[in-house]
């Protein structure tokens, strides 16, 4: 079908031009700008040479990793429960758990403020219990809660699908051979859903690394990479630094995703 080939080429042309003009070219410019500041190519190393930026990088990595682990832990328990049990109202519960899937980071930040902010629910409860007002929205703890809030529905959807695909016969076989509950979980269930764990964990981690909206809503003082890039660009007008940090951030998230890409599950919406 030679003319169909020609049509296909014709179809790919606009896509190619768009990606070239608005993605590849700007990205190349970003790389060039990052190396054209007063520090020259040294700007690329600013992330590790500047103690301030380095500690921000470490804080961002630790925060993203712990939020990811917490999300996965909760996600596994909830997915195992919902995937194994049948009860009335289950679909409504699943719908409620997956509803925040479309909340952008700013809205998630607002949810955390309502939960743990100055007039938040948690503060009201702790005050009623005579423990003083507990307010943690505008700190790393708030951001941690925000990232868990953001990722939990996405992780849940993936893990639930994985749990439902697990063959219950394997588990029964393990049990009949005398495996304990913990052994079944460790040797049968977790390996069975490992690809989904890896894939959804990678996405949760990458999103947390680059998430800007939540941090922006909660406070401008939280030192995470996304906020640093933003302040370097808008307040300090330090475009070279902002560009270098963006490239570093992009590389980290891309590497994490690429490392787990073959395990699929990447159709879940990432950022927002």
């Amino acid at each position, binding site marked *: 079908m030679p*003319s*169909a080939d020609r049509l*296909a*080429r014709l*179809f*790919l042309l*606009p*896509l190619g031009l768009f*990606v070239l003009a608005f*993605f*590849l*070219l*700007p*990205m190349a*410019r*970003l790389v060039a*700008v990052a190396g054209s500041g007063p520090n020259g190519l040294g700007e690329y190393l600013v992330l590790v040479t500047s103690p301030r930026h380095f500690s921000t990088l470490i804080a961002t990595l630790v925060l993203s990793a712990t939020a990811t682990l917490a999300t996965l832990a909760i996600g596994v*328990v*909830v997915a*195992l*429960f*919902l995937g*194994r049990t049948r009860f009335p109202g289950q679909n409504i*519960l699943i719908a409620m758990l997956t*509803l*925040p*899937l*479309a*909340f*952008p980071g*700013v*809205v998630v*930040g*607002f*949810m955390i403020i309502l*939960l743990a902010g100055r*007039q938040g*629910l948690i503060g009201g409860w702790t005050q009623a219990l005579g423990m003083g007002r507990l307010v943690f929205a505008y700190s790393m703890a708030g951001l941690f809660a925000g990232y*868990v809030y953001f990722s*939990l529905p996405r992780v849940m959807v993936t893990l639930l699908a994985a749990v439902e695909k697990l063959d219950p016969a394997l588990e*029964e076989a393990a*049990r009949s051979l005398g495996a304990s*509950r913990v052994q079944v979980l460790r040797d049968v269930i977790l390996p069975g859903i490992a690809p989904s764990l890896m894939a959804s964990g990678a996405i949760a981690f990458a999103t947390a690394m*680059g*998430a*800007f*909206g939540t941090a922006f*809503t909660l406070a401008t003082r939280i030192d995470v990479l*996304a906020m640093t*890039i933003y302040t370097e*660009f808008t307040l300090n007008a330090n475009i070279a630094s*902002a*560009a270098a940090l963006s*490239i570093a951030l*992009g590389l980290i*998230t*891309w590497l994490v995703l690429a490392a787990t890409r073959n395990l699929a599950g990447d*159709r879940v*919406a990432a950022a*927002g």
Partner: protein
Amino acid sequence: MKRSPLVFALQLVITLLATAFLVVPAGTSILAGVTVNYFQGVRSGLTLEWVAQVWGLYAPTIFRSIALALGTLVVTLALGVPSAWALARKPGRMSRLVEEVVTLPVAIPGLALALALIIAYGGIREFRASILFILVGHVLYTLPFMLRSVMAVLAAVDVRTLEEGAASLGATPWQRFIQVVVPNARGGIIAGSLMVVTLSIGEFNLTWMLHTPLTQTLPVGLADSYASMRLEIASAYTLVFFIMIVPLLVAIQLLGGERRAAKR
């Protein structure tokens, strides 16, 4: 398999806590948006005054977001559907590479993407000041979802055989695309469209960097209201956002459920 009641109870409690964690703030926000005074609680009465104020303050950002989402949809359809067919009919290293590059913007933080666009095109004033600047960002970010959604369906229905059939009856390539490929890919096109519109309406990371005072969108307005308005107005605005996004989300879930059912 029988579970111990203790494990069962623990799982149930964690599940309910997780659900409460996700749903209670959203419920609070909805309630706060229609409460006369949040500090006094519902006792102070219910009102639509805050929603009206949001409408007065932010109606333009809401309409702009809808227009932007529809514009993004049109462009992703025009770019994505034909390319999905072109890539799906010749699966190979080349088409993997193209798909990979097109999908890359999803993996790159919105801030980096926005910064790159500003550095490359920020100097072209007319473009920078227009809504098209944000449109480009949204298309970059949503295009992969359209492309993959359509490619997945085309791979599933074996469109090649259908096409060969049509070709043997004398249909030209263009006729085959319009009359065979597009109708068969309908499910993927609809799923991709819902995804594109949902993502575009909620997109903040890119939009915050790309917007100008004259091109604010709904999420930009949300951030603004969270920072500067009373809690009731911020909540009412969030309520407006929920009203826009929840039907889209329900549609996506229903469509997903239908597909899962069809697979079984």
